[in-house]
């Protein structure tokens, strides 16, 4: 880019570049729309926690609710509702739990059993009850896609998530 502008204003020695300035204004205007778009996307839940992000899957006696979009190092809830007598065992595949940290499980499971490629949480059903509703507070450890399965007995739900950095 050539040095310019020294003569444009008589004695004023200035490195003004009006063509570049106009380009900058145009980009600035475009940015306003991008900004608006990002804000709308955030409100809708594209970055997690909104209408676009909620997922719900039912498979026989098992229902799992989770978030499609989550953020790294931020807790999200994964709700499991399952029918069963006496005890209900919720089985995660271990490769999923390797990528997320289990912050807490509500209510506390009666036992946690580690298999070769599974982690099983067992909850006790109150006498006369037939359903367990548990909430897993999880935290993704790295950005990218996450996939895993949650199973109760024969019923299995596949989970897919995208983790923002």
């Amino acid at each position: 880019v050539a040095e310019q502008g020294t003569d444009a204003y008589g004695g004023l020695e200035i490195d003004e570049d009006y063509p570049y300035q106009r380009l900058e204004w145009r980009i600035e205007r475009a940015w306003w729309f991008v900004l608006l778009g990002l804000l709308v996307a955030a409100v809708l839940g594209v970055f997690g926690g909104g209408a676009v992000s909620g997922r719900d899957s039912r498979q026989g006696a098992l229902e799992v609710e989770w978030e499609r979009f989550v953020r790294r190092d931020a807790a999200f809830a994964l709700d499991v509702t399952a029918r069963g007598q006496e005890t209900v065992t919720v089985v995660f595949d271990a490769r999923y739990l390797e990528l997320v940290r289990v912050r807490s499980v509500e209510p506390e499971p009666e036992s946690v059993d580690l298999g070769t490629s599974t982690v099983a949480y067992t909850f006790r059903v109150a006498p006369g009850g037939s359903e367990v509703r548990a909430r897993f507070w999880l935290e993704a450890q790295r950005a990218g896609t996450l996939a895993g399965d949650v199973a109760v007995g024969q019923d299995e739900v596949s989970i897919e998530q995208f983790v923002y950095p």
Partner: protein
Amino acid sequence: VDSVIRAAAIYVGLLVIFRLTGKRTIEQITTFDFILLLIISEATQQALLGEDFSLTTAFIVILTFVGLELAISLLGANIPWVAKLVDGTPLVVVEHGKPIEKRLSKSRLTKWDILEQARSTQGLERMDQIKYAVLEKSGAISIIPYRDGEAASA
């Protein structure tokens, strides 16, 4: 490595956001702008350090920022378009006592902003006493008054 990447990402992200949002956000700080800056720093602070409160990480983050700042200023001093991209260019907004309306409105300024600056820095009373007003790269407005004996009608 992680904290260097985080710090670099935040540096670049903030640079792009502030650069795109315009000069006015940086200079001419009002009380509310000041609060906004505090909130922005609070929001980035968490993402920068995460749950790592060690001295090492703090210094790595600081070194990353200082290093990037140095690198960009070195690049800018040697490659003109880098400087233009990062800092922008100055813009003449008043010429021979006449405000250039299009440039003012595109810069989100009014002639009253110019006159305010003329009063506070030069003690001027009217637009026709201003030879040039320049919106500088920093976002500040420089006022060049007519010298004694110079004609205001050009």
